[in-house]
């Protein structure tokens, strides 16, 4: 499972896309806060559209998958390239998760309407890792964005 992903992880996440202390306190604002990270990094062309798409996806079923993790995601033409933004909230945010517990780790995944399979496979790989307890714990314990990058690079 660890087939030389290291290099490629940098392609869709970097330290600028990591926010260690999310300020939001509810679901809608955290999505907005994360989308703004994407906007600042020029990953997306239309902030409102991306927020709308993300909320639409949530309406179909929460992406708060439990165990303190939420992975809102958007597939849209307003996305320039596949990217992941990572945010952490130590306090926890009520995200309407499946296990009804607050979420601490947030991955906002954005992909263009037409994406290369390799990118999607990388994202799939990231998703797979979120299932592992030690992976999540190390993300919760990481004290800096550099450390988070290091963990992600080693998946």
């Amino acid at each position, binding site marked *: 499972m660890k087939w030389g992903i290291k290099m490629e992880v940098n392609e869709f996440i970097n330290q600028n896309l990591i926010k260690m202390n999310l300020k939001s306190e509810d679901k809608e604002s955290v999505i907005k806060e994360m989308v703004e990270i994407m906007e600042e990094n020029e990953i997306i062309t239309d902030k409102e559209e991306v927020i709308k798409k993300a909320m639409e996806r949530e309406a179909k079923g929460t*992406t708060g998958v439990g165990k303190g993790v939420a992975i809102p995601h958007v597939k849209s033409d307003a996305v320039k390239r596949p990217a992941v933004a990572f945010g952490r909230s130590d306090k926890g945010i009520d995200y309407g998760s499946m296990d009804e517990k607050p979420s601490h780790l947030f991955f906002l995944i954005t992909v263009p309407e037409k994406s290369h399979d390799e990118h999607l496979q990388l994202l799939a*790989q990231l998703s797979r890792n979120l299932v592992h307890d030690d992976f999540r714990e190390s993300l919760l314990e990481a004290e800096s964005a550099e450390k988070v990058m290091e963990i992600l690079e080693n998946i």
Partner: protein
Amino acid sequence: MKKIVAVTSCPTGIAHTYMASESLEEAAKKMDVQMKVETQGSVGVENELTEQDIKEADAVIIAADTNVSHERFGGKVIVEVAVADAINDAGALINQALEKADRGEKTEVKSNLKGQVSDEKEKRRSKRSGPYKHLMTGVSFMLPFVVAGGLSIALSFVFGINAAEQEGSLAAALMQIGGSSAFALMVPILAGYIAFSIADRPGIAPGMIGGMLASSIGAGFLGGIIAGFLAGYITQWLKEHIKLPENLQGLMPVLVLPFLSSLIIGLLMIYLIGPPVEGIMSGLESWLQGMTDANAVLLGLILGAMMAFDMGGPVNKAAYTFGVGLLGSEIYGPMAAIMAAGMTPPLGLALASTLFKNRFTRQEIEAGKPAWFMGISFITEGAIPFAAADPIRVIPSIMTGSAVTGALSMLFGVGLKAPHGGIFVLPIPNVVTNLGFYALAIIAGTLVTAIMLRLLKPKLAE
């Protein structure tokens, strides 16, 4: 060691599908259960389950928020949950599946013929491209007009075959609705929506105008098809090649495109294309009307075989479009042959799978029951699952049966005024002429199909 196979799938197919897959694999590892998970995500199907995998599995887990087909898991223990359940507690899910397997609770997967057929139709629709797609778009928009027109005309005959000539009578009103309105719109709608399929909205006006001209100069549906394609491609070309200055661009869709494209297509239809097509069309009409029995039988044979050949594919649709188009010229014989021949493939297969059980798999026998219904509803696609399993024997059988039905229907001089509906339109008075003989033609084709299948299909080993 126990073996479980699973399928995971979620609406976007980016995250949950894979998390669920990983959870299941992890949990299975801990529980010492062999696990193979097929993921149906945005990358497509990965780690696809083989028939072997499914055969060996003690249980099947489907963790999906999308519609995952059950077809291939017939006779297996199935646990079906939302994708989230597999992410949250895969272990419990595996236990549940194994317990269910121990109790031997096989989920009876109804062989879902209807589902398979609509999947197949959808697949075909999405594969359609180019001129064929455009033509089918036109035909599908035209059909409601044909239905409304054909049935209204049929109803007007209830009052006697010449009743509509009595001005002010209800029969005349029905004829006015069906004949001079609905049928009159057929060709313009056909042409308009062929052009729409090619050039989007700007295609509709020139297409309909071209179709109207085809109609009025007697070039019929053939002229309409040509007008539709010409209008579509010409409009598309104009759209791409006319460059107006920025501040005049607003005039393109409201003035320039509709006027220019309609002018070009109109002049072409009147001076260049209309006359020869009118010749062909009136030749065709008079040939069809004055056909000898031998020619009628031959035409019925060909149309019938075409209907069965690809069961709703392009060849079938070519024959069908021909029949529907002729309704506009008030020629009803080919339509009758075509509908009858489109009904016999599922009917013949249903009959054969009922009578000759040792030549069909259990699944096919199960699928035979809904095939009856598809047959009487004129859904030729109902034969596809059988044909897909054994094309070399099934397709010649159904083609023979359909050819016989088509030929008989033409020979008996049956006419049909509705373009669809199977037996459900037949009770409406005057929709079909010679109803008794029509039924005979359909029954004969059904029997021939079944007999052919009996002869060609070998006995299956138990």
